[in-house]
């Protein structure tokens, strides 16, 4: 386990909402390991807790969020127990983040170049001039044309793709060990998406950093990830390397996700959809959390919560009756 850059163990995160005493559990006992130099995908629908997992580890939860238990080991230190001052030295320096919406994630009233050089001055201890020179270099590196001129531009003067390049430049400025990318291409056009993913790949090859790619887009996962965690309703339901996952996924939810990808199908065939929606965090089913939406659910699935089990070669799955086995939940008949 020495070669993992970040290990999250049994993370539980809850949220308070106005006027309610009970807290909603958004992340419920998540374990994730990110090997050095590799790209790990964290996949799931909106609201499954994938973003919350990364924000918890970075200490960036909104005010109403709180980590209940768990640890996040980065270079032998638990990020969740570090005092804020120490954690700040890691943030933006050794672990950086890029976010989904590059329009709102960049400060609208500060020129983009200044926003890039900010981290350089803070962590790199550079003076204004050096930081500016370095920032322009970085902007050029991430493919911002006319970087010298763009340095003084405000975010709204750039296109979405350029803004995301700036975000990446900002995050890569200090050559972090780990880059957490939270839906980095969701708001972009498909052609721009490919460019951005290619850029991330190149940068990763050069610096040897690890990437945690948070996305709901399996296409992105197939493109860039080495291994994948699939999350559903605050829990990891499946974990495998990317080939195993696409070749023989075991969890019905993952299968549903893959089946609902549009592809070259004969005319007239319907696109697969998973019925229903993610259950309310305050009213989770007692058994398997996916049971209400699962086509294969049987009595046992409703009553007994499945555990995350190794189904061979380190392929983990949280299901009583993984796809590919012909069991339908053991004893009970559905």
């Amino acid at each position, binding site marked *: 386990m020495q070669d993992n850059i970040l290990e999250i163990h049994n993370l539980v995160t809850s949220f308070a909402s106005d006027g309610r005493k009970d807290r909603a559990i958004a992340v419920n006992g998540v374990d994730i390991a990110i090997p050095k130099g590799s790209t790990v995908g964290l996949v799931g629908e909106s609201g499954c807790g994938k973003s919350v997992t990364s924000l918890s580890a*970075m200490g*960036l939860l*909104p*005010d109403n969020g709180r980590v209940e238990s768990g640890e996040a080991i980065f270079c032998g230190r638990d990020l969740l127990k570090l005092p804020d001052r120490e954690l*700040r*030295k*890691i*943030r*933006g*320096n050794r672990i*950086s*983040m890029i*976010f989904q*919406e590059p329009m*709102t*994630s*960049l*400060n*609208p*009233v*500060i020129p983009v170049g200044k926003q890039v050089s*900010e*981290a350089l001055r*803070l*962590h790199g201890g550079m003076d204004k001039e050096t930081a500016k020179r370095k920032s322009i270099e970085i902007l050029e590196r991430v493919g911002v044309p006319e970087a010298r001129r763009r340095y003084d531009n*405000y975010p*709204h*003067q750039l296109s979405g793709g350029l803004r995301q390049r700036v*975000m990446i430049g*900002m995050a890569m400025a200090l050559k972090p060990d780990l880059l957490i990318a939270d839906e980095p291409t969701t708001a972009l056009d498909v052609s721009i998406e490919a460019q951005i993913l290619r850029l991330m790949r190149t940068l990763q090859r050069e610096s040897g950093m690890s990437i945690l790619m948070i996305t709901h887009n399996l296409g992105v996962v197939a493109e860039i990830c080495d291994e994948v965690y699939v999350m559903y309703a605050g829990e990891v339901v499946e974990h495998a390397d990317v080939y195993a996952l696409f070749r023989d996924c075991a969890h019905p939810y993952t299968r549903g996700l893959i089946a609902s990808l549009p592809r070259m199908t004969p005319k007239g065939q319907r696109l697969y959809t998973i019925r229903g929606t993610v259950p309310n965090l305050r009213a989770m089913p007692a058994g398997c959390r996916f049971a209400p939406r699962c086509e294969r659910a049987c009595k046992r699935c409703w009553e007994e919560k499945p555990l995350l089990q190794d189904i061979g070669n380190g392929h983990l799955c949280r299901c009583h009756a993984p796809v590919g086995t012909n069991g339908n939940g053991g004893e009970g008949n559905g």
Partner: protein
Amino acid sequence: MGKYITKRVLVTIPVLLGIILLIFYMLNVVPGDPVTVMMKEHLKEDVIENLRRTMHLDDPFFLRYLRYVWDALRGDLGVSWKLNRSVTALIATAFPYTLRLAVAAALFSWIMGIPVGILSAVKKNSLMDHLSMGLSLFGVSMPVFWVALILQNTFKGVLPVSGANSWQCYILPTVVLGWSSAGRIARLTRSNLLEVMRNDYIRTARSKGLSPLRVISRHALKNALIPVITVMAIQISSLLSGAVITESVFAIPGVGSLAVSAINNRDMPLLQGTVIFTAVLIIAGNLVADVLYSVIDPRIRVE
């Protein structure tokens, strides 16, 4: 930019004409003939007739309005019935007092309001937050004239409580007038800052490892204070309203006192002049605030 300002100035012209029309109409349909007000009842019929003619009182309303606008443009707002002096001159003498008071009160309200608002937002839901927000609502709810009276009677003998002969005379009026504005600014600063703090770019700033203080001062404050500028424009209006009361309690010979005396003496030209003058001030204030806004906010600057 220049285009924006030109357009903005042009829009105010009909409003300005509307203001003068409204006031002129209201004050010129008022029952009670000005000549009788001026001369009491001791005048002979022909003298009154003569006076009416020289004052153009028998002309059609619209003609009188246009004449007034034309005169006003040249800086002539008529002659006070009671004081028999040029209204423009009276306002020119009184305005410095009002200006000094309003500026002092505005500064007071910013110096008090903005830091309190920031602290409340940073220490959201703390005792200090609840206390200062409660206090500011308390401040907004206190009648200006009442606070004025209470301070006047409390500080009798310690500070000057009437007149405007020295800078000490302005201390109490400034506090009275600035107090409720300070409350409003504190509340607005707090709610703006809290709103801004929820933005994605604040999370980005934090993800860079900036300290909370830096996040607020570098990334949040500018965004949060831009809308506060709009309030400065609204503030001019409420400061001038408040100045009417404050000046009359503390016997400061400003424009507000002039207006109150005009009403009490039924001095129509003076009232008309002071009201139109203050309205123009407010419009100019709004204009300046809008332009300032567009200078500060880069999103508008480009358009």
